[in-house]
């Protein structure tokens, strides 16, 4: 049973954590793709920017959270979301809109977004340095150890305070997004534009507004994803390309342009990563005595070492591109 708890700690919880982060990131990517029709390579750095804003605000007002009894970074998150949304809209105005006006090919947007990614990276690291920093400036990271009321189980289920907030926030974000897309006038217009931009325009929908709203949403979601990631571990300014691959893989697995698919894809990729680096030997250990002699298990039965974690999303990406490029829930555009 101890092994099972170990599995819960290292796979179920860890997988849900990474899955949530990838899911929220992938939704942003997929929204941008469905409206602007290009893969936004600056998304990882937009996430970092959001987390950096939280860090900055938390450092400025470290006591703000104590008044209400929540960690300060969470208080600062809405503000950081607004700032990141503003950044996203600003970047669009400055760099993508002129290209749209020229009617360039989608791939040129991809290159431009790489340029934007580098600019953000450079700026953030110029100010934040390259080392990791904790978002818990003045607060203490609570760690909950839940001992299971089962005979013989000594290992507790471990979950940290930020992880609980992460699950709650993910749920809120997903439900909020669902309500927005399926109920609100603007959300429906967004889906309409993703279906058929010309017809949306002919219906009187102002496509410029939709583009701006998309960037705001993507920016806000990026800030959430980046902050959640930084809360779980630490704020690391140099993650961008390592985040990009799993997030794109998640978006493609779910079917590009398909927000709910992206959420599912995020969890698929997140769990795949944790399952792949998990040492399966741990689970097989209880049966070791009943195994035949010739079958001695090696000590390390992980699929890939943690240093090769990035192989997992890439593998998923290749498999999905070969097997079903439209994603598991058929995306709109290949």
């Amino acid at each position, binding site marked *: 049973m101890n092994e099972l708890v170990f599995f819960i700690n290292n796979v179920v919880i860890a997988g849900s954590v990474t899955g949530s982060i990838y899911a929220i990131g992938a939704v942003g990517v997929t929204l941008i793709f469905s409206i602007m029709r290009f893969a936004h390579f600056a998304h990882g750095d937009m996430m970092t920017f959001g987390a950096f804003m939280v860090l900055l605000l938390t450092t400025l007002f470290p006591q703000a959270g104590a008044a209400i009894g929540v960690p300060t970074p969470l208080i600062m998150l809405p503000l950081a979301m607004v700032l990141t949304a503003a950044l996203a809209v600003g970047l669009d105005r400055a760099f993508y809109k002129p290209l749209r006006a020229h009617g360039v090919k989608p791939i040129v947007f991809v290159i431009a977004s790489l340029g934007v990614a580098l600019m953000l990276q450079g700026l953030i690291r110029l100010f934040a340095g390259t080392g990791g920093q904790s978002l818990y400036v003045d607060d203490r990271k609570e760690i909950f150890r839940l001992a299971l009321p089962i005979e013989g189980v000594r290992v507790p289920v471990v979950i940290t305070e930020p992880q609980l907030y992460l699950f709650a926030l993910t749920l809120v974000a997903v439900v909020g997004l669902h309500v927005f897309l399926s109920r609100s*006038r603007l959300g*429906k*217009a967004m*889906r*309409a534009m*993703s*279906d*058929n931009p*010309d*017809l*949306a*325009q*002919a*219906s*009187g*929908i*102002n496509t410029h507004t939709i583009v701006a709203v998309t960037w705001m949403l993507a920016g806000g979601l990026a800030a959430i994803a980046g902050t959640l990631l930084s809360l779980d571990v630490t704020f690391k300014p140099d993650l961008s390309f390592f985040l990009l691959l799993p997030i794109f893989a998640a978006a493609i697995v779910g079917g590009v342009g398909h927000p709910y698919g992206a959420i599912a894809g995020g969890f698929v990729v997140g769990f795949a990563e944790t399952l792949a680096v998990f040492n399966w030997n741990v689970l097989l250990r209880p049966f070791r005595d009943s195994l035949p002699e010739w079958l001695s298990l090696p000590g390390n039965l992980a699929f890939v070492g943690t240093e090769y974690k990035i192989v997992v999303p890439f593998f998923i990406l290749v498999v999905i591109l070969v097997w079903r490029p439209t994603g598991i829930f058929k995306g*709109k555009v290949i």
Partner: protein
Amino acid sequence: MPLLDARDVHGGYGGMNILNGVDMAIEADEIGVIIGPNGAGKSTMLKAIFGLLHVSQGEVLLRGEPIQNLPTNKLVHKGMGFVPQEYNVFPSLTVKENLQMGAYLKPGNVKRMLAQVYEFFPPLLEKRHQPAGELSGGQRQMVAMGRALMAEPELLLLDEPTAGLSPLYMHEILERVKAINAAGVGVLMVEQNAKQALAIADKGFVLANGQNRFTDTGAALLADPEVAKSFLGG
């Protein structure tokens, strides 16, 4: 004052002129039908009226107000609705959501107009929660026309609404067009099924090479032996 008055319209794509001076006028309670051979500029004319194509010369008046080269959302606001020939629904949105998008600029009207559209197109009522992409061609055309009607247009532009439909559905759609017109909406449509369309037309415009060849009432054009010979297939 005519509802729509297009005078001497020139225009085309990328420097190549397709329209070389087309005149077209219809009154508020009329159905106008544009026919002509392939490449005559029928659909192009419709797009020029709806601002999807640059009008390089001439003018387009809606109730006497010049509207050429205005952005499309302005035109929707001024009371024009446009139904393209292809890709005329949002496939992943439900029928109801498709219709709601039509009333995007007039959200206050949604309830009343929804009821009205369902009255025009009863099949849509029972399919209202189904994604439009799953419907048959004729039903999709109904969604498309319904979507355009949701904005309560004074003038409805239809680009080959019966293209690719079975004769049964073609008849049905043309009947709907008549009903819509009877409800007080001016209609201007491009049609390949010239005879059937002219039969319901108040005005007919025969285009060739981007210019007017014949302009008369629908009945007169149907009766004209020269039109019949060259454009109605004998």
